C-alpha cells in the first residue's frame, strides 16, 4: 500500500482504476435474482454483502477471544447439566477432538460445538417454568463461587432488577436506550391518553398533576404500539400475539408472546430522574387497561410485557437492523468505490473490521427459524423480517444524528430529564468523533473543490444512497457529497454507529440482560387483564429455564467479545504525521471523556445503584464485530 492519495492526484490512475474495476467481482450484494444465488445465501431483502471479502475478516485476536470465552461459557453450561438434573433435548457439550479440529478448520459450527442450544427440558410437566425467582440464579448462574467469581458471576442488575428505578434505568441506560420521547399534547397517542391520569396518587408524585407535568415537559413515553405488526395471528393460537415454541422440529406445548405496549414515565418536580407511572400492554380495543405502580403483581407483569417488547425491538431493530445491517452497505460501497490508498478508505476500514463477517454469520445462521433469535425473542421469526425492513429502510441517516434525534424526541433538556446516562455519554463521544473527523477531512481536502473532484468519494456516497438504500445518506437533491461539512456529517454518523452506538446496544446484553427477569426478550403468558395477580402469575409470564439457559450463553457470547478499540487504527497513519497528530488529539479527548464518565458514574450509582460503563471510551470497539 502506498501513501494516501485522492484519486484526482493519483499518479498511476490506470492501475488504480483497474483495481477498482475488479472489486465488483469480489464484492457482490446478496441477490436472489442472480443466477449464482443459493438458498443458504439468505437474501432477506436488504442490501448486504454476499460473501465477506479479504478485507472483511476478523483478525486473529478476535478468534482467540471468542474461543477463550466459549471455553468459559461451556464450563458453566456443563455445570448446569450436571447440577440441575434437567433432561435437556441436546446432550451436554463435551470436548471432542475431531469436532474441535473441524471447527478450527472453519468447517464446523463453532457455536454448536461449544454452546449448543440445550433445547427444551424433557419430562417436565411445567415445561421448564421457574418455581421461584431464585431459579433464574440457581439454575443458570451455576458455576459461581460464594464470592461471585467463576465462569458465571451474577451481574449487579440481579440485585436491583425489581425496583421501579431500575425499570426506568433500562430506558435510559439499558440495551435499547434511545426510545424515550417527551409526551406532549401534540404527540400523545390517541389510544394512550393520559390527560385524565391521576398522577398525584402515584407514590413519589403526591400533589403533582398530570396537566402541569405534561405542560412542564416532565412526562415521557416509550411507544411500542407498532409492534402489533409482529403479531402472527395464527389459527389455533391462544391469542393473536402468540407464537409457537419449536426446537429441532419439536413443538413445546406452551407459547411465546410479543406485545405492543405503551409505558409512561415522569420526573417529579425537582426530581433527579424519571420514574414509571403508567403502562398499557396493548390497544384499548383489545381490552388492555392502564396499570400503575400501585398494582402489585399486575404492575410487575405489565412491566415484564413492556420489557419483553422493548428487548424484542432491541434485538431486531436497534441492534441488528440499525447497527449491523445499516453499516453493511457502507462497508460494501467503501470496498467497491474507494481504493485502499484513499484517505477515507483508511479512516473507515478499521471501523469495518469483522463487520461483514459477523453479519454474514447472523444472516445465514442466527436469524433462521429455530435458531437463537427465534428461540429468544417473542415474535415469530418470519414476522420480524418485514418489521426489520420497514425500520431499516425508514431510518433516516440524518434525522438520527445524535444531537438531532435528542432534540426531535424532546429529550435534550438535562434540566427536565436529568440523569440520562446514554444521552450524556453519547453526546460527549459524538462531539469528539466529529472533531477528529473534521480535522482529518481538513488535512486531506484542503479546499472545497477537492470534494467535487474526488470521483471515488462521489460514487461511494451515491452507492450508499441508492443501492445501499440508506435513507438520507445524501442531502436532498445531492447525489453524492456536497462539501466538506457534508462529508464530516456522513463520517461522524458512520463511525459513531460502528463504535459507540453498537457498544451501547451490544454490551448491555452481558450486564443488564443476563439475569433474565430483569430484561426478558419475550413473554410466556398473555398480558395481564384485570387486577389482583399473584407471584405465580408473574412467574408464568417470565421465560422458561431452557430459554434462560440458552439466553445466558448467547448473550454472554455477544457481550463477551470486546475486540478492536475506538481510536486505534492499527497503525494506518504511521506514515502520515499530520493525521497521526490529529488522531493523538482524539485519543487525548477520549481519555478526558473517560474521566468525565467515571465521575458521572458516582452520581449514577447513588441514584440507580448501577453504573453506565458501556460508553467508557476504553470499552468501545472501533467496529461491529460481534
Amino acid at each position: 500500500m502506498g501513501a494516501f492519495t485522492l484519486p484526482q492526484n493519483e499518479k498511476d490512475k490506470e492501475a488504480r482504476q483497474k483495481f477498482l474495476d475488479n472489486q465488483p467481482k469480489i464484492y457482490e450484494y446478496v441477490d436472489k435474482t442472480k443466477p449464482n444465488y443459493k438458498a443458504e445465501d439468505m437474501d432477506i431483502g436488504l442490501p448486504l454483502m454476499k460473501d465477506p471479502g479479504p478485507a472483511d475478516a476478523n483478525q486473529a485476536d478476535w478468534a482467540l477471544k471468542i474461543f477463550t470465552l466459549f471455553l468459559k461459557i461451556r464450563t458453566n453450561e456443563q455445570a448446569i447439566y450436571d447440577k440441575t438434573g434437567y433432561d435437556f433435548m441436546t446432550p451436554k457439550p463435551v470436548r471432542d477432538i475431531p469436532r474441535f479440529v473441524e471447527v478450527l478448520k472453519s468447517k464446523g459450527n463453532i457455536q454448536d460445538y461449544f454452546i449448543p442450544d440445550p433445547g427444551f427440558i424433557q419430562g417436565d410437566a411445567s415445561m421448564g417454568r421457574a418455581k421461584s425467582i431464585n431459579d433464574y440464579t440457581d439454575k443458570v448462574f451455576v458455576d459461581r463461587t460464594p464470592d461471585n467469581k467463576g465462569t458465571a458471576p451474577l451481574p449487579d442488575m440481579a440485585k436491583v432488577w425489581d425496583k421501579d428505578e431500575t425499570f426506568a434505568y433500562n430506558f435510559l441506560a439499558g440495551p435499547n436506550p434511545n426510545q424515550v420521547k417527551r409526551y406532549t399534547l401534540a404527540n400523545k397517542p390517541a389510544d394512550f391518553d393520559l390527560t385524565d391520569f391521576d398522577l398525584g396518587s402515584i407514590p413519589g408524585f403526591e400533589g403533582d398533576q398530570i396537566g402541569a407535568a405534561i405542560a412542564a415537559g416532565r412526562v415521557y413515553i416509550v411507544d411500542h404500539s407498532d409492534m402489533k405488526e409482529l403479531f402472527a395471528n395464527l389459527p389455533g393460537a391462544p391469542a393473536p400475539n402468540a407464537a409457537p415454541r419449536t426446537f429441532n422440529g419439536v413443538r413445546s406445548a406452551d407459547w411465546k408472546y410479543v406485545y405492543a405496549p405503551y409505558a409512561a414515565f415522569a420526573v417529579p418536580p425537582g426530581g433527579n430522574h424519571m420514574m414509571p407511572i403508567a403502562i398499557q400492554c396493548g390497544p384499548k380495543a383489545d381490552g388492555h387497561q392502564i396499570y400503575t405502580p400501585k398494582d402489585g403483581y399486575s404492575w410487575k407483569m405489565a412491566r415484564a410485557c413492556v420489557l419483553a417488547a422493548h428487548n424484542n425491538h432491541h434485538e431486531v431493530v436497534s441492534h441488528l437492523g440499525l447497527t449491523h445491517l445499516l453499516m453493511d452497505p457502507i462497508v460494501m460501497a467503501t470496498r467497491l468505490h474507494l481504493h485502499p490508498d484513499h484517505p477515507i478508505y483508511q479512516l473507515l476500514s478499521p471501523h469495518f473490521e469483522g463487520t461483514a463477517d459477523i453479519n454474514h454469520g447472523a444472516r445465514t445462521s442466527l436469524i433462521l427459524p429455530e435458531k437463537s433469535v427465534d428461540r429468544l425473542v417473542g415474535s415469530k421469526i418470519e414476522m420480524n423480517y418485514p418489521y426489520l425492513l420497514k425500520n431499516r429502510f425508514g431510518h433516516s441517516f440524518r434525522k438520527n444524528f445524535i444531537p438531532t434525534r435528542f432534540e426531535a424526541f424532546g429529550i435534550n433538556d438535562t434540566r427536565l430529564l436529568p440523569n440520562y446516562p446514554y444521552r450524556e455519554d453519547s453526546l460527549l463521544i459524538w462531539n469528539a468523533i466529529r472533531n477528529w473527523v473534521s480535522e482529518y477531512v481538513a488535512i486531506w481536502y484542503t479546499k472545497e473543490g477537492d470534494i467535487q473532484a474526488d470521483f471515488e468519494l462521489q460514487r461511494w456516497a451515491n452507492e450508499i444512497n441508492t443501492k445501499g438504500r440508506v435513507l438520507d445518506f445524501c442531502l436532498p437533491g445531492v447525489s453524492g457529497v456536497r462539501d466538506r461539512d457534508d462529508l464530516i456529517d456522513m463520517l461522524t454518523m458512520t463511525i459513531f454507529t460502528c463504535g459507540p452506538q453498537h457498544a451501547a446496544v451490544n454490551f448491555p446484553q452481558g450486564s443488564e440482560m443476563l439475569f433474565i427477569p430483569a430484561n426478558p426478550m419475550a413473554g410466556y403468558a398473555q398480558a395481564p387483564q384485570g387486577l389482583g395477580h399473584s407471584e405465580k402469575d408473574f412467574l408464568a409470564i417470565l421465560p422458561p429455564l431452557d430459554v434462560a439457559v440458552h439466553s445466558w450463553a448467547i448473550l454472554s457470547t455477544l457481550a463477551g467479545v470486546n475486540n478492536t478499540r475506538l481510536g486505534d487504527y492499527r497503525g494506518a497513519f504511521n506514515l502520515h504525521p499530520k493525521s497521526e497528530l490529529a488522531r493523538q488529539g482524539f485519543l487525548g479527548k477520549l481519555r478526558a471523556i473517560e474521566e468525565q464518565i467515571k465521575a458521572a458514574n458516582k452520581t449514577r450509582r447513588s441514584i440507580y445503584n448501577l453504573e453506565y460503563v458501556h460508553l467508557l471510551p476504553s470499552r468501545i470497539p472501533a467496529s461491529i464485530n460481534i
Partner: protein
Amino acid sequence: MKPNLTRRSLVGSALLAISSQAFAHPWVDFLGQKDLDRSIFAILQQYLQLTEEDRPLMPAFIRRLQTKDLHTEDPETFKRWARGGKETQAELEAYVVEEFVVASNFFAVRAGEESRLRILPI
C-alpha cells in the same frame, strides 16, 4: 529503546528460567519432566501439526495449565489425566488441544500475522 543486555541480566534471566521450570512441575516425580513434555508435544504434533521447532514451548504451556484460573480444568485433574496412561489418554488429548489453541498465538500464526508459535504471556 536499544536492548541493554548485560552479562548480569543474562545470568539473572537464566536463573529465573531454571527456577520457574522447577516450580512448573510439582509432580515431576510421577512422570518425569521430559516424559510429560514429550507426551504433550506428541498430542499437539498429531492434532495441531506442531513441528520440532515448537517443542521448546512445552514447559511454558504445561506451566500455564498448572496456574490458577487460566484453563478450564483444575491442575489436579490435569495431573490425574497426565498420569492415567491409556485410560485417560482421550481426556488428556482433548483438553491439551483445546487449551493450546487459546494459550498460544495459534490463530495469529494461522492467519499469517505472526510466523512462530509462542505461548501467550500470563
